[in-house]
């Protein structure tokens, strides 16, 4: 098992972004899910396709049941999104190099115009966080007026997933560069973290020991999902209680 502090931060890992999610205060309200869809031009798929498991949530709130009535408990809500693995299982299986590791952001990126839709990556993702465009889902006029010009609109046959709002990262980096400084902690955040009314999601640089997300990620009770698979996820969870 690799603990976060054992991951050596070498020079080429600078610029590493990460997230901490506190399940104890997540209320499962779905504000992050809506915010993500609004920010990232995600299609809605309708009742039939969503019932078939084709909905395109880049982030979803998982909840499980423990026990039986009357001794039943809902497990702490678990927002599940791309863990931006340091050693991602989706990457080596792509025949088109569409899902690759970005050296600059230390993120797991999806290159839409390389993707040929084999769906190998989704099959190989232990977190089940990739969604596939099974159709060209129609967004009738004037809904497209809402499209975020910073995010590519995907079409049928393309795999997609959470990008850690890479468009916001780039915007903040460009702004910082033009002002000859580093990006400040908390200067910007992802759409999900920005919306979260409980502040259960914290995003930032995990290679900066001073950042809030680093401070939180190194608390003792943080866990990484399925870390025994050696995927080196960049999202830390607090289980709560």
């Amino acid at each position, binding site marked *: 098992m690799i603990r976060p502090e054992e991951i050596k931060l070498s020079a080429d890992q600078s610029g590493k972004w990460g997230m901490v999610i506190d399940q104890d205060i997540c209320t*499962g*309200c779905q*504000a992050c899910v809506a915010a993500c869809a609004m920010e990232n031009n995600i299609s809605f798929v309708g009742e039939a396709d969503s*019932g078939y498991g084709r909905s395109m949530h880049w982030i*979803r709130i998982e909840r499980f049941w423990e026990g*039986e009535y009357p001794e039943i408990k809902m497990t702490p809500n678990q927002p599940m999104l791309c863990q931006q693995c340091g050693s991602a299982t989706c990457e080596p299986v792509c025949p088109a190099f569409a899902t690759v590791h970005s050296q600059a952001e230390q993120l797991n990126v999806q290159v839409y115009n390389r993707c040929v839709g084999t769906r190998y990556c989704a099959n190989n993702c232990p977190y089940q966080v990739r969604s596939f465009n099974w159709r060209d889902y129609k967004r009738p006029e004037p809904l497209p007026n809402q499209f975020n010009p910073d995010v590519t609109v995907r079409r049928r046959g393309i795999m997609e997933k959470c990008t850690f709002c890479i468009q916001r990262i780039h915007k903040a980096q460009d702004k910082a560069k033009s002002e000859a400084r580093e990006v400040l902690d908390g200067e910007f955040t992802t759409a999900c973290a920005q919306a979260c009314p409980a502040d259960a999601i914290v995003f930032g640089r995990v290679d900066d020991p001073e950042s809030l997300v680093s401070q939180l990620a190194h608390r003792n009770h943080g866990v990484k999902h399925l870390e025994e698979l050696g995927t080196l996820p960049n999202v830390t969870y607090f289980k709560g209680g």
Partner: protein
Amino acid sequence: MSKQFSRRDFLKLAGVGAATTAILTGCGPASRLVRREPYLQMPEYTYNGLSTYYATTCRECAAGCGLVVRTSQGRAIKAEGNANNPLNLGKTCARGQATLQGLYNPNRVRGAIKHKRGDRLYDTAADPFNDEFPDAASNMDWDAATQVVAESLKNNKPEEIAFLMGMAPDHLFDLATDLANATGITAPVRFGALSMFESRATLNKAAQNLFGQSGLPFFDVGGAQVVFSFGANFLETWLSPVSYTRGFSALREGKTKLRGTFVQFEARMSSTAGKADEWVALRPGTEAMVALAIGRLAAESLGITTPKVFADVDPMDAASKSGIKLETLEHLAQMFANSNGALAIPGGAALGQSNGLAVAEAVLALNALAGNFGKPGGVFFSALAPNQTAYQQPASAQEMADFVQKMIDGKIKVLFVHGVNPVFELPAALNFMGATKSVSQIISFATFPDETAVEADYIFPDHHGLESWGYQRVATGSKESVLSGAQPVVTPFYDTRATADVLIAAAQLAGGKFASALPFKDEVEFLQSKIAPLMSESNGFFEAADINTFAAFFQQYGGWWKTIDGRNVPNGANALNRSISAAESKFAGDGKFFLVPFVSPTLAEAGANKPWLQELPDPTTTVMWNTWVEINPATADEMGLADNDVVQITSDAGVLELPVYRYPAIRPDTIAIPFGQGHTAYGRYAEKRGANPTDLIGQNYNEAGDLAFAGMKVKVEKTGRKQALSRLESLMGVYGVGLGEEH
């Protein structure tokens, strides 16, 4: 207000005092509308790739959260919370996020329409997702529309004219109130399904009885150590969910104290109860008894004389009637008594019963025992909003029934409807639909083609909230007294017109006392007249010497608020020294099951036409795009019911057919149905989807006049049919399940 003042000059001026903020005033007094240009033809104040941000107020519910909307080339791109606004501090709920899908909804009312009652307002299509779906065309111009409004004002007796309005926006309510006060028109009536399911009237009445003061209580969840909630779904839709969620977060994080404990008492585990450390599944109708029993046991545990209010209840009896073990009650009472920050909240379905007022009083009395009035983590009266002198209560269901009776008796000749959809939101048993037949003229100002607009003679559509001026008083949720300001963030997309402008123009046209009641050039001038008195108030978030600068700041920051705590401390001196009945509530109907209707946390009352809200999984069941009935798996087994089996539910008031969701966290004698779907109009994403549980609710009220919506007993019968529910759980990456057909 100079006409020569260019927009750019105005922005420069507005920027002087606030160079640090990126939020712009959308529209100065000189240029009242933002223009939407093709991407190729850029307005002078935008730069390619750079966004402009406007502060405004969310209209998805009446809480009044501040928004900052990102726009690009005159299009609204993304709504975020306004970090300056003390109510939501930069945060939003899912419905606030989806507000743009209302603005750009493919089914809106596109212009003034003279309409035959019952006619559709958009075409039908076999495949609503893919076929063309034209909206009804406008068939009259706005001059003619204004004329119609003016004539109906002028040609009817004032007492035969009525305004029925929603909980938002407040500025239009103020305008209609001013008009009514000056001309003798009946005072506008406000209503909303959320306020009905929140049981606001009961909460207010209980506070009045206990503290001798009218107002909306504020519960400081964040400062408490132990929170007992009786039915209040404060993490979903109750009163001000974003602010209460922040409070819950503080309760749990315990930055300055221990992690707080949260206990929820209700028959069905709501998504709020899902977050509780303990969920107490009491028998519906025994809430008052349980609250009083906990009070009595807590007093005993503290070793004090049992206060009069708790003296009459027998904890053994309460335990057996509520189905809670006596040990559990004792343990909860000790937890409550021994905490130095105990708080009890009454709300939601617990109050929507025949004894709802007793429940609210009993739970508020627990706070008196804890002695938390006015202390951190305690009970307060919410701060009154800046231009408000008394708490304004929306109409209770009982008052709405009286209103409907007035319609039936022919006492209302002209009905103006704005911001509310009574045909859908009021229980069918109240017969609003039938009463419309006795009203000779109904004028709807609906933005969307909703069920009430379908029953109107004219539809004079208001702008969408993001295209509108206005303000909303923050009724509860912030320490400070807050007036959230709204301004257009985009040009109106269609040929709609602000209802305030229509009323002002019509009043001018009608002349006489109408004209002198609303002596304004337009809505903006009216708004400025309403916010002008704030300039002389102290402790404001900003100050300005003249109204133009003040109004510019008001737009730029998204409202005006005080920087001091404006909450009042309830006087609880007599709260423990009275009697409250511990009797169980009465249930209408002789069915086997208690019915708990609850507001869908993702759709609420008006979200059904936004496709992404439909596709958000319900937080507890993960069902999307439909309505279901929750039944305990053990009960379902007894009745031979599997998931997706359609059952027929019969109450005194009506019949519904719904697919079963075997919900593991509900009492075996209780079923629950979400409210939010079941539209027969309201656009392609809402129509013909799910069912409306208000069809099952009869005309039963509690002592405060709120609807006893959770006071029904219903029959459940298997129909033998199946209807597959679309849900997120268990389907992720699994093929061969789901709707059961190949795609």
